[in-house]
């Protein structure tokens, strides 16, 4: 089932036999997967297949959902993130997340980016913070559009700009992994193209996992693709192979639009 790629380095994150339950309902069944530093991995699959749930277990955002329970091992640099000694707050700083709906804080653009570095004490002075904000906004491809109005509210930006602001906010705390949960589903094609371009540029610097409904997007932005169906990982492999030569019939049916 799982294709054994031969990684030169140990994987950034690895999930081994993960099961997730919401109360009595099992949402994820025995999923094992690896997220590498130099790849973008796309999670695809029909609605309700558990891909978002799985993504949220990777930085323990599911902890906030009442009745959610995770079994199995998920490691970050070999450390089990569900170990009681793991600090969730630090974990989420190391494994950042971008959400489906752009959710900037109702604060200024500057404060949106600066919030993470501030709470983690990454900047010693105002000048340091200015540098962090500028570099995060540059990497998020937003600097030129907002450099003259950093004091404006983040919620006054357009949807696509808001989403890039959220990406900038996530990278401002220098995470090691970025999880993106359908980051373009609320955006128009032009804004989507900009985000995809951004993902290309961020690749290599961060390990990136992206959940998407859009098959073309998965094909465009990712090097590895994982296909989920009904809570199980059906197929996982190099993106070009999944899309041109899927091994499983269910994968083939899905990517050719037979169902989903």
């Amino acid at each position, binding site marked *: 089932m799982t294709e054994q790629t031969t990684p030169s380095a140990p994987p950034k994150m690895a999930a081994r036999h993960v099961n997730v339950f919401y109360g009595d309902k099992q949402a994820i069944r025995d999923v094992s997967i690896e997220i590498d530093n130099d790849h973008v991995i796309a999670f695809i699959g029909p609605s309700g297949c558990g891909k978002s749930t799985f993504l949220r277990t990777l*930085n323990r*955002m599911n902890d*906030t959902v*009442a009745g959610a329970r995770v079994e199995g091992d998920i490691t970050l640099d070999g450390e089990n993130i569900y170990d009681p000694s793991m600090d969730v*707050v*630090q*974990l*989420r*700083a*190391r494994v*950042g*997340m*971008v*959400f489906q*709906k752009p*959710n*900037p*804080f*109702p*604060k200024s653009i500057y404060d949106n980016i600066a*919030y*993470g570095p501030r*709470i*983690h004490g990454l900047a010693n002075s105002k000048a340091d913070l200015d540098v962090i904000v500028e570099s995060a906004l540059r990497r998020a491809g937003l600097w030129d559009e907002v450099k003259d109005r950093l004091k404006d509210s983040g919620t006054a930006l357009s949807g696509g700009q808001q989403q890039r602001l*959220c990406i900038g*906010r*996530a990278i*401002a*705390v220098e995470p090691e992994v970025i999880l993106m949960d359908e980051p373009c589903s609320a955006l128009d094609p032009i804004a989507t193209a900009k985000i995809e371009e951004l993902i290309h540029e961020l690749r290599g610097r961060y390990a990136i996992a992206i959940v998407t409904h859009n098959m073309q997007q998965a094909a465009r932005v990712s090097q590895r693709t994982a296909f989920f169906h009904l809570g199980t990982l059906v197929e996982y492999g190099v993106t070009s192979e999944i899309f041109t030569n899927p091994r499983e019939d269910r994968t083939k049916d899905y990517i050719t639009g037979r169902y989903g």
Partner: protein
Amino acid sequence: MTSPPPDETLTRRIPTDWKGQAMQRRIAARYRAERRFRLIGLASILLSAGFLAFLLVSMLGNGLSGFTRTEIAVKFDFPRAPMVVDPAMLEGGNADQVLAGANLPVVTAQAANAALGEGGDALISSNAWLTVRDAIRDDPSILQREAVLSLPASADIDLAAKSQGTAQAEAAYARLKQGGHVSRAINMPFLTASDATDPTQVGIWGAFKGSLLTMLVTLLLSFPVGVLAALYLEEYAPRNRWTDMIEVSINNLAAVPSIIFGLLGLAVFLNMMHLPRSAPLVGGLTMALMTMPVIVIAGRNAIKAVPPSIRDAALGIGASPVQVVFHHVLPLALPGIMTGTIIGMARALGETAPLLMIGMRAFIASPPGGVTDPATVLPVQIFLWSDEISKGFVEKTSAAIIVLLLFLLGMNSIAIYLRNKFEKRW
């Protein structure tokens, strides 16, 4: 009976006659319903505005005269008056004591009789000598000469001046007016003094300060406790039978009649904890019990209304739960919490019943110096004055109501200003 083949039911169209009579009637009825509803809404707005206008007009009509008083000019010839006061004794802080023993009531009565004719002492207030005392204290040099002082008129004359007096008093007032002795002045003592037995001497300051102190205690207790309770219940408390029970209890608490809270305050704060009777501290504690559930309920609703995406965003970059609450949830919920607080505090400000139970209805002739001094509050003062027999209290009652309404207005304005300020920041 055979059903038609499915494709026929799908393709068959029932023709709609958009221009037909029945359709036109339906459209006309729809417009009528719209107009009717709008008129009913307008009528209810007008009705409530009418009630409000009636209240304001009648209060202002009755009460504004309570802020003025009638004064009678009386000439004093201090060097010849039957009193011995050493001006040197008036230096320092005990001038009032010295003057209290200086036979001033008799001096005042004699001066009044001399200036206004026989029976003149009955035309001025029985406490008019206090005005003389204050004049001497402020300027001891008048003891060496003649001076004309404006003394407050007696309650009867004051009423007659406001055309509410008896026939006898009206006649006396007419004579005084002919003699050019009377004048109208702002009743400063009403704004600076406390309760008294004589309506010409009463003041609202004591009750005002009592209300202020009571509200302060209420706010300082109920706001933080209410907000923290709301935050805990919304953000931290596990969802189980216990929290459900607490929620139901809080909702019930908000609906408990206020007199019950008064009895509770009497039993707990006075009988068990032996806190001072009639004190703003106890009043504030009792009111805080009453206000807290309102703040908790409003606070929980405001916290619930903060979009979960904001919480996700903050958690997603590694904010701890406390940071999420204090950096994001609370600031966003604050305007809503403050609306609830305004409602709760306004209710507490107008509350009388629980304060009667803890002794804040006592006759208190001096303003409270602190939260443990005996005091009364504005609504209780209004209640007490409305119960007085003397007719002079009628306008004082209305004047006190005006003061209470102004207090309320001021408090709400501050709260709304603060709320808007917080809303703008976000």
